[in-house]
């Protein structure tokens, strides 16, 4: 073995030792340690991959990114998976892709309407505003927090061109209705699958129904690479457009550090450029630079190997918390899956029933004081936020449930870092609260 390879092996062995010393045996201390709503769950392999990638010192996307994209596409059974630097960037790339002139008459244009929900994360909607599309908001069901199917149908107008929504908290929205309407009205469908990696609808993975889907790899999500996300699609054309928008808008699809993979670098005609103008510097879209580093992908690849186990543990934790809180259903609205769906849960969402003796704030303050992290259902009603109050939009019906979420809903974690000891503690804290204990 050459000296550099030998040194690399030794370094990676040391990394494994470091993991054992630093991270392997951490015990949960009830009432002292936080029960996070989400977080990184990893073993030595993530650290080994990260250091291995750093020793390559390629820095930009390379072998780990290639492997991740291939394995991730295989997970979905799709032909295109494109790493980007966040789930929000994935939404920006995916939605902007639908505005590409290369889509001809079907491209989204300024003023076109997109049906969505206001109860969610801002960066599902922000790229619509950034592309001068008009979001049309419909209300959501309480308990599954996804769009009310009849409202989606009601929202369709002659200007409607797309349905773009999240499978909120891992719960698939009504894909039967959405895909039927898309077919009937020739609409694009983009699934924001950031919360729902591994969720299924009628047995099929979410993210594989629409024209495009997005995934997030932020540490709160099902698998992580720190910052990261992906756009997935079965369409080679959309895949190529998305790659262009991710990579500065250029027409060339060579990976960083590569040249002439198309074999036509100096022999094509574009616009009014001189014939044979270097394809690497030909721009077919108004694009961004939203790429990942290979270090991120290296961590992600190790995580991907754990995905099926993570999904199973999320489901198991959800079921245990559900059983634990079922006695309090008169006070708490517990979460439910939509019909025909099998969520890979992002969190355990609770809405406080109206006219309870306590408020959301009473409960979340108590949980937080007892080291149990809580989070609101993201933005609640987006239209009540300063950034969104004055955007061009349309609302169909009212957003009564969305407002309820804003005022009375929160969630706690189900992520695989939560074990039975933590769940027992969680149970004891809820029990104390339900018996009347409060934070002063």
């Amino acid at each position: 073995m050459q000296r550099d390879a030998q040194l690399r092996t030794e370094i990676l062995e040391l990394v494994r030792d470091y993991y054992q010393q630093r991270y392997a045996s951490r015990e949960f201390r009830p009432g002292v340690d936080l029960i996070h709503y989400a977080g990184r769950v990893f073993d030595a392999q993530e650290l080994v991959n990260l250091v291995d990638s750093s020793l390559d010192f390629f820095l930009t996307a390379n072998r780990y990114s290639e492997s991740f994209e291939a394995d991730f596409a295989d997970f979905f059974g799709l032909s295109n998976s494109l790493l980007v630097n966040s789930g929000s960037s994935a939404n920006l790339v995916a939605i902007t892709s639908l505005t590409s002139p290369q889509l001809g008459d079907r491209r989204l244009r300024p003023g076109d309407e997109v049906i969505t929900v206001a109860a969610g994360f801002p960066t599902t909607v922000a790229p619509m505003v950034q592309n001068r599309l008009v979001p049309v908001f419909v209300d959501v069901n309480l308990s599954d927090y996804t769009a009310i199917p009849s409202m989606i149908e009601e929202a369709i107008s002659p200007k409607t061109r797309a349905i773009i929504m999240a499978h909120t908290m891992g719960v698939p929205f009504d894909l039967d209705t959405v895909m039927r309407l898309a077919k009937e009205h020739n609409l694009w469908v983009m699934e924001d699958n950031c919360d729902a990696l591994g969720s299924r609808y009628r047995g099929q993975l979410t993210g594989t129904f629409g024209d495009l889907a997005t995934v997030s790899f932020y540490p709160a999500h099902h698998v992580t690479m720190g910052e990261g996300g992906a756009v997935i699609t079965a369409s080679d054309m959309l895949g190529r457009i998305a790659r262009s928008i991710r990579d500065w808008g250029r027409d060339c699809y060579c990976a960083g550090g590569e040249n002439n993979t198309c074999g036509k670098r100096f022999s094509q005609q574009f616009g009014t450029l001189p014939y044979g103008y270097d394809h690497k510097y030909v721009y077919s879209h108004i694009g961004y630079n939203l790429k990942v580093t290979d270090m991120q992908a290296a961590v992600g690849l190790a995580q991907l190997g754990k995905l099926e186990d993570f999904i199973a543990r999320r489901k198991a934790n959800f079921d245990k918390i559900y059983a634990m809180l079922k006695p309090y259903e008169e006070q708490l609205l517990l979460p439910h899956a939509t019909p025909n769906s099998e969520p890979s849960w992002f969190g355990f969402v609770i809405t406080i029933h109206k006219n309870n003796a306590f408020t959301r704030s009473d409960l979340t303050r108590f949980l937080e004081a007892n080291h149990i992290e809580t989070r609101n259902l993201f933005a609640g009603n987006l239209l009540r936020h300063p950034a969104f109050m004055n955007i061009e939009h349309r609302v169909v019906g009212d957003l009564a449930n969305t407002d309820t979420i804003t005022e009375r809903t929160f969630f706690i974690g189900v992520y695989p870092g939560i074990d039975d000891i933590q769940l027992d503690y969680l149970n004891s804290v809820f029990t104390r609260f339900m018996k009347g204990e409060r934070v002063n």
Partner: protein
Amino acid sequence: MPQKVHCTITQVIDHGERVYSVFLKPDSLAPRFRPGQFLHLALDPYTPGDFWPESRVFSIASAPEDRNILRITYAVKGQFTTRMESEIQVGHQVWVKLPYGEFAISPESDACLLAGGTGITAFTAFLAGLQPDYPRGVHLLYGARCPELLIFRPLVEEACQRSSHLHVLYMVEQDSNGTDYIPGRINLDLVWKSLPDPLVVTYYLAGPPEMLRTLTQGLAARGMQQNQVIIDAWE
């Protein structure tokens, strides 16, 4: 999504006239690819994580369904293929990266495939997968220097048996004695005589640069629009 794959050569067929087929077995399953796509093959060593070495482009002649074996066919034309001829043997190990390219035959219109020599490899995966219910007519003109270099003739004949929509003419440049081919090069006079309506088909061209140049100019002169002529050309 292109991936770099380490492969072992499992078979080399010498077709004569310095034309070879090479079968490559990837260490792991090759990435998904589509008919008409191509791969890059490198002869120099490559260390994952480093920069990719010099490579050349070859159509993937094998069917996308079989990701365990990749086939390419090449004619010795320059320095790189001369190196391939001398270095590539059974057991030899190489790196390839794939898939690339968008040379896809559209089912939106009838297609006329003009294949010269090893250019047929741009069409073999499509022909191997051609089903009886393919919705359009496909006309193939397949030319080679000599009858022995109509290497993929058996595959073409099988496709003809499967699909009545496929119509084939074989052409041979350097031999005029056969009865099952037409002597000479692929030319547009013959295309115009053979096709029921040559103005409404899409033309797909793959073959030597001179053939591509001549046919492209000829098609333009006959009024074909740019989007009706798809060329599989590399530098």
